[in-house]
Every structure is written in structure tokens, then in C-alpha cells.
């Protein structure tokens, strides 16, 4: 089969916030740049981001600055973050947000005409630049228009599946046009992976079909290191009913704007789940929590806005203890706490979403919500300053990269992460492409990959790829969910092996033209490979920290708190090791504080009440 060929200095895979920002930067620095994306331009998952972009602009609270943001990020990540990434992120996020404004973005305003900022979980001050509850749309459209106006080449509905290598270094990538099914290969001096996460391995997820772990799998295949793949974020609030919308996100902005979580008895249960690590920052009475929205100097933050891992575990525990709603969630109530027109103005798409999909008027009734797989903190190991992966010529930015968020990502830190490290990746890739000779893309490699793309048509398999995918989702949901156990993780690995064997027999009907069955059959390989990395890493880390909760090791362990779990592929097998985190320099450590997370977390396995208050 013929393979269409292209040559670029920099190929950016993925056109979400990170990919677009990387491409804009690489192009601006004079590198011949292409953006390749699986969907139409502007449909990437960034468009789903609702709440806002965290950046210490200090427009609402002049007390805010990068140091506070850095502290919040590190503590929210349970100190597993790459400190340098967290520092760069906190320092550069304001500039990246203001840059969007230079390109035409319209954020909501303060009375003085500056960018308005909203409260979000884990952030000391109101810090999120936002546009109602559709900030991601504003961001992606601004970047998209700017990229198009700059004249960057865009390859839409084009899936790149394998990296082409020249010895140790990256030489390009190969994949197929979704529309025609024709194969396409890029020769490139540098490749930036901005492919997002792997949410489609779980059943209840806020992620779209695109989230099949492509970038992680490609990097793994090319020999790059992954770290902390066990760190998956379950967003505490997603729709739970009706079934067909289970998992669709309900923005943290609901709580940022005054909404509160209640169990079926009507209790604001979050007050029972305040860990010691956050006690000094968190209100312990309803009065103080409510007063905090107006007066942040004299009150502490409401526990409804604890970091996402804490809230998700708390909801999970409440439901397991029988205090959940009819459909297995808890109530999120803003109707009784804010006026209807305020809710409609601040949260228009939440209002719309519940009204249209669940017949619920959120200005009149409480929402039913529960956790959904939302994000993976783990991913490709990168250098903090350049976003370079451990394979020369390979860069990664956004969700696909790891380190920035440690064990748990704070809401709002994702969009700023995309911008800060998207720009850095684009810059580093462009600079690398200027100082490096063109690599040679080996025809034999291209031919071998072309064979693999054709295989599902030729092998005459009988397995239905959709059925395999559904079983994979069940497996990850049941066995590698919010709360994990050794025996379940081992069971998951055994099932993954069986699924891998079945996926190799997946059959495809029809032609190559826009054939989702074929696309899924190819995606399964990635999904299973990355799922295995998650399950194995989860088995290795014998503690509970952030997005990784082990029922059999329910406490954070300071020993583990200083280690990354590293995953590599060697000789076709995953090899896992642990490596020490880079130590935080003294002056930054002073910002974070000396205490460490230490107490048992709520796993829901017993009616234990954390924090000693019932």
C-alpha cells in the first residue's frame, strides 16, 4: 500500500491546548511545523474544560502570587510533583493567560476591567481566569484561530500511531487518514506529543473517544520512560443519571460559586473528611465555610473545595456507607444557596446540560453527582525546562506528560499546564530541530507499520472490537478504580492479557474509508498497553497518595512519597522500577511547609469517619 510522505522540522501530534500552543511557538521560531489531529480542528478535549485557567494574576486577591500558587500545586499533588515544573508553571501561567487575551480571548471581567478570577478546589485564592463555564472552548478557539492565521499546516482527522526512529532518536511518525484510510508518514526532526490521556480505558469517564493513550503508547514503544502511571484522577462530580450520560463532567465551578455537597440525609458531609494535611487551610464549621466565599482573609476554605482526590474518596465512602442517592451519587446543591439568575449567568452550560439531558433544573433542584475518571497525572517523563522526553527528538506536553501535578492535579491547573509547557515544548522542539541534522526514516520500519495497519482487515478475525473495548472498560472500572487492592490489580493484569490476545483477533468489516471499527481495533492495542502500565504501577506503589488509593495500604508512606514509579518497555515487556524524586531546593521547600500527608485515607471499606467528627 502506498504511503503518503511529508517532511517537517517539527510535527505536533494533538491539537488540544498543548498541541496548538506548541505548534504556534515552533512555527513562530521559524521551524516548519505541522499539527496532526485525530478529530476536526477545534474538537479536542480541551474544549470540554469548564471551570477556568489557574494563574496567579492577583486581579481579585492582590495577596496572590506565584509562590502561593506553587505551594497550592505541590500540596495538592501530595508533594509528588516535579518541583521545577510546578515552579515554572506557577511563574509563567499569568503571562500565558494574558497572551491569550492578546490573541482575542474574552474572559469575564472585574469591575476595573481586568480578568475576573474564580474559586476552585485546592487554590488558596480565587485564581481561575474563566468565561462562564466554557473556558476550554474560549481557549481552544483562540489558539485555533491564531494557529490558522499564522498559516501552520493542519492535518485533520489523521491518526498517528507509531513513532519512526533512527537509531535512538525520533525520525517521524506514521499513521492513517481517518477519512480515506490511506497511510501517511511524516519525517520530522522533532515530534511533540500532545495527545492527552487514556480515559477511554474506563467505563465511567468524562473523556471522549480520542482518549486512547496514543501518545503514551507511542512513547513507550519508542523506548521513552513513563512515570507514576498509577496516578489517575477521579473527578468527584460528574452526572450519574440517566445512565447514558453517566460520567459527563459537572464543573468544580459549581462548588467554586457556592454549591455544596450533601448526602441523602442532607448533611454537608465534607466536614467529616478534612485531612490533617489541609486542616490549617480548611474551615471546620459551616458558618466559616460560607463566610469564606466573601471574606478570604478571616475565614478558611470550605471543605467542599478540598483537592479532587479527597472529595472523590469522600463521595465514594458516603455512597458505600449507604448515604448516597437513589442512583448511587450524592447531592450537589447550588439551587438553595444562590439566586437562579446568578446560577444561569455563572454556569450556563451546566444549567443547559442538566436541563437537556436529565430534565433537572439546577436553579430549583440539587444535582446528583458521583466520581468519574477524568485525568491521568502520570505519563511521559519529561525534562521540566524543555518538555523533552527521554528519547532524543521527542517532546511531550499537557496531560500526556507527567510530573507537573504529582499525585493529584488541582482543578484549573490543567489549562495553564497546557499553555506553559505547550509553549516550552514547541520552543525546545524548534530549537532542537535547528541544531540537529535531518534523521533518516527507515523504509523497512514504514513498511512494517503499514502491515500492522492492514492486519485487522487481512487476518479474518472474529472478535468484535466494540465488545473487547467494553470488557476493557469494565475491567479497569471494577479493578483499577478509585480504591485498589493487590488481588484485584493482579486479576486486572490477568484479564488484560486475555483481552490483548482477543484484540489480536479483532476482525473488521467494510472498507478503509472512515471505518470506526477498524480505528477501534487499532486503538485497542494502545488502550490495553497503557492500561497495563497503569495497573502494574498501581501494584508497585504500596501506599495511598493522591489519585492512587490502596485499600491494603491506606496511608501515605513518606518513603514512597519521595519516589517515582518508572515504567519502560524493554524487549517487548514492561519493566517497572522506582527512582527518587528530584529534591526540592531549600527556599522552595520553605514555601511548601514541612508537614507531610500522613494519616489514613477514606477507602470506604469501613464506616470509619476520617477527621474524628461525626
Amino acid at each position, binding site marked *: 500500500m502506498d504511503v503518503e510522505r511529508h517532511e517537517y522540522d517539527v510535527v505536533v501530534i494533538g491539537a488540544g491546548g498543548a498541541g496548538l500552543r506548541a505548534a504556534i511557538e515552533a512555527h513562530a521560531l521559524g521551524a516548519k511545523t505541522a499539527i496532526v489531529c485525530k*478529530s*476536526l*480542528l477545534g*474538537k*479536542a*478535549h480541551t*474544549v*470540554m474544560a469548564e471551570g477556568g485557567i489557574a494563574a496567579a494574576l492577583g486581579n481579585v486577591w492582590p495577596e496572590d502570587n*506565584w509562590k502561593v500558587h506553587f505551594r497550592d500545586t505541590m500540596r495538592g499533588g501530595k508533594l509528588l510533583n516535579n518541583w521545577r515544573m510546578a515552579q515554572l508553571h506557577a511563574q509563567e501561567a*499569568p*503571562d500565558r493567560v*494574558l497572551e491569550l487575551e*492578546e*490573541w*482575542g480571548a*474574552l474572559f*469575564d*471581567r472585574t469591575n*476595573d*476591567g*481586568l480578568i475576573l478570577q474564580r474559586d476552585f478546589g485546592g487554590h488558596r485564592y480565587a485564581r481561575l481566569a474563566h468565561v462562564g463555564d*466554557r473556558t476550554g472552548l*474560549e481557549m481552544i*478557539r483562540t489558539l485555533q*484561530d*491564531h494557529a*490558522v*492565521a499564522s498559516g501552520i499546516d*493542519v492535518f*485533520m482527522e489523521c491518526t498517528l500511531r507509531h513513532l519512526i526512529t533512527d537509531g535512538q532518536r525520533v525520525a517521524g511518525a506514521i499513521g492513517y487518514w481517518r*477519512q480515506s484510510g490511506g497511510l501517511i508518514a511524516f519525517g520530522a526532526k522533532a515530534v511533540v506529543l500532545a495527545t492527552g490521556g487514556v480515559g477511554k480505558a474506563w467505563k465511567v469517564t468524562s473523556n*471522549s*473517544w480520542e482518549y486512547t493513550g496514543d501518545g503514551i503508547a507511542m512513547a513507550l514503544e519508542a523506548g521513552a520512560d513513563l512515570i507514576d502511571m498509577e496516578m489517575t484522577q477521579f473527578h468527584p462530580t460528574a452526572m450519574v*443519571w*440517566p*445512565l*447514558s*450520560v453517566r460520567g*459527563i*463532567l459537572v464543573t468544580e465551578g459549581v462548588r467554586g460559586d457556592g454549591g455544596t455537597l450533601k448526602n441523602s440525609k442532607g448533611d454537608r458531609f465534607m466536614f467529616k473528611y478534612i485531612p490533617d494535611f489541609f486542616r490549617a487551610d480548611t474551615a471546620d464549621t459551616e458558618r466559616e465555610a460560607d463566610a469564606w466565599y466573601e471574606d478570604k482573609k478571616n475565614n478558611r476554605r470550605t471543605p467542599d473545595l478540598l483537592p479532587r482526590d479527597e472529595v472523590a474518596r469522600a463521595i465514594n465512602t458516603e455512597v458505600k456507607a449507604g448515604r448516597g442517592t437513589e442512583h448511587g451519587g450524592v447531592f450537589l446543591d447550588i439551587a438553595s444557596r444562590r439566586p437562579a439568575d446568578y446560577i444561569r449567568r455563572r454556569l450556563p*452550560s451546566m444549567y443547559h*446540560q442538566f436541563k*437537556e*439531558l*436529565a*430534565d*433537572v433544573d439546577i436553579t430549583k433542584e440539587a444535582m446528583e453527582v458521583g466520581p468519574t475518571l477524568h485525568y491521568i497525572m502520570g505519563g511521559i517523563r519529561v525534562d521540566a525546562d524543555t518538555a523533552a522526553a527521554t528519547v532524543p527528538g521527542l517532546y511531550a506536553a499537557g496531560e500526556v506528560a507527567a510530573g507537573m501535578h504529582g499525585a493529584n492535579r488541582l482543578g484549573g491547573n490543567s489549562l495553564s499546564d497546557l499553555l506553559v509547557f505547550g509553549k516550552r515544548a514547541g520552543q525546545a522542539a524548534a530549537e532542537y530541530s535547528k541544531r540537529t541534522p535531518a534523521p533518516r526514516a527507515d523504509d523497512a520500519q514504514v513498511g512494517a507499520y503499514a502491515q500492522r495497519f492492514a492486519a485487522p482487515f487481512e487476518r479474518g478475525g472474529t472478535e*468484535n*472490537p*466494540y465488545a473487547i473495548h*467494553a470488557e476493557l472498560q469494565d475491567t479497569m472500572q471494577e479493578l483499577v478504580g478509585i480504591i485498589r487492592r493487590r488481588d484485584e490489580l493482579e486479576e486486572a493484569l490477568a484479564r488484560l492479557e486475555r483481552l490483548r490476545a482477543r484484540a489480536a483477533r479483532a476482525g*473488521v*468489516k*467494510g472498507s478503509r*474509508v*472512515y*471505518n*470506526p*471499527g477498524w480505528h*477501534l481495533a487499532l486503538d485497542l492495542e494502545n488502550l490495553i498497553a497503557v492500561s497495563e502500565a497503569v495497573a502494574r504501577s498501581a501494584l508497585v506503589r504500596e501506599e495511598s497518595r493522591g489519585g492512587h488509593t490502596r485499600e491494603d495500604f491506606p496511608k501515605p508512606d513518606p518513603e514512597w512519597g519521595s519516589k517515582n514509579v518508572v515504567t519502560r518497555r524493554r524487549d517487548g515487556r514492561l519493566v517497572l522500577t522506582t527512582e527518587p524524586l528530584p529534591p526540592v531546593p531549600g527556599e522552595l521547600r520553605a514555601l511548601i511547609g514541612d508537614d507531610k500527608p500522613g494519616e489514613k485515607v477514606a477507602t470506604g471499606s469501613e464506616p470509619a469517619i476520617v477527621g474524628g467528627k461525626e
Partner: protein
Amino acid sequence: MTTETVAREVRMKVWRGDATGGEFVEFAVPSDPGMVVLDVVHRIQATHAPDLAVRWNCKAGKCGSCSAEVNGHPKLMCMTRMNEFAPGEEIAVSPVKSFPVIKDLVTDVSFNYEKAKTVPPFKPKPKDPDGKRRMYQEDVERVQEFHKCIECFLCQDVCHVIRDHEDNKRSFSGPRMFVRLAALEMHPLDTNERIDLIRAQHGLGYCNITKCCTEVCPEDIHITDNAIIPLKERVVTAHYDPLAWALRRIRRAGPASPAPPGPQSKEFAAPTPKPPSA
């Protein structure tokens, strides 16, 4: 809350084919409470037709990928609830008609991306003397309505100017592009000039304001009233209004104002000092 509690079987006719032709094929699959049309299409994919082509991403009405026509109405499949239809009612899903079919429910929407390339980009005026940008809620709100656009292209699909008259695609850009152009034109910071282009190149005059774009917009953008008609009025001032033309002539010739304030003079305004670096 009104939810059906008993699962029932639904029958759905889905248009299947490609650029050379096609037909409706009927499928029967079980339906669950709360399902939307896209769920049924996915179920058909998983159980009957694995190669059934359909675009989708967010499944929450935020990305604008799953545009199609349901019983002849341009809709997002993810936001069309199955309980909108009476039990036993025939449901027909077909691809949008303004654009060429690639396969099944997927069409070639590159028209929109090509037109987007011809829009002159945002060009902000200089920053305030203190290096900051100030905009006010009353000014951004008007444009924020246009920024709600999720590029589902349902307005382009329903617009008869291109839906029924292929030739017009050369000289008419469609409602989506007018929303985009209105957003740029009414942006409080923008200084670029587009009005003449809007008339001559994007073909605003082809729109006969029959408002179907507004009717189908899933984001409830008042495309006709708030984007297209205000643009038409601006075009009138710049191009058709004799009094406005005369006033411009007088102002240009008049000795009282040797340097008329205009978009061009703004471009060359002195740059403000850079903000102090953090």
C-alpha cells in the same frame, strides 16, 4: 424528574452510503432510559454495523462534532433525547446536506475551514499606559455570545444559500463565518478592518435573514439578530447609506479635522512601554 423506567426496543433508520449514493437502513436495538440519538447510533455500531461512520467527541453538546439531520431537522445527535419521539415513531438519521458525504453520517466540512482561513485575524489596539488590558463586562458580553459557537456547522447546513445553491459557496461564507466576523468586528480591542470584505468576499448580501441558522443553533446564539443584522447595518453605513457617505466626504475634506480618527491611524499609534517584567 421524568424518566422512562422500562427499556424498550427502538427502531432507527440510518442513512448509509458514500459520495456515490446510499439509502436508509433500518436497525432495531434496545433502548435505555435517558438515551440520546447518538447512544442509539453507538449501539448500532457495536452490535450491527461496526463500520458505521459517525463523528463525535464530547457527547455533552460542547464540541459540535455529531451534527446530523434527525427526521429532517438539523441537530446534535448527543443532545437529541430519544424520549422526544413517540413510541413507535419512525426516526430517520441522515448526514448534513450542505456538504459532500464521505461515508454514512460523516461529511466533508472542509468548506468551513477554508473560509476561516480568509478571515483577517484579531489585531488589538495598544495596551493601556500601565501595560494592562482593560475591557468591561458590558463590552465583552456582546461578543461572548458569539464565542459560544461550538462550530457544529448546523447553521451552515440549514442555510439555504449554500444548502440549495452549490454555486454560492464561492461567494458566500455562511452564518458561522458571520458569527466569527461579528465577534472580531465588535471586539472592544480589535482594530482590523473587515467590513468591505464582509460584503464583497464573504457575501453578506446573499443572506435573506430567513433565520433558520438561529433556529437550529444548539448554543442559542441569536445569529441573525445579533450577528448578521448588525453586520448588515455596518455594511450599510460603509457602503450604501448616502448620508453616511456624504458625512465621510465632508469630514475628510473639512479643515477642522486634518487627522480624522480612523482605524488606520490607530495602527500607527505609539507603542506603550512594556509592562515591568515579573
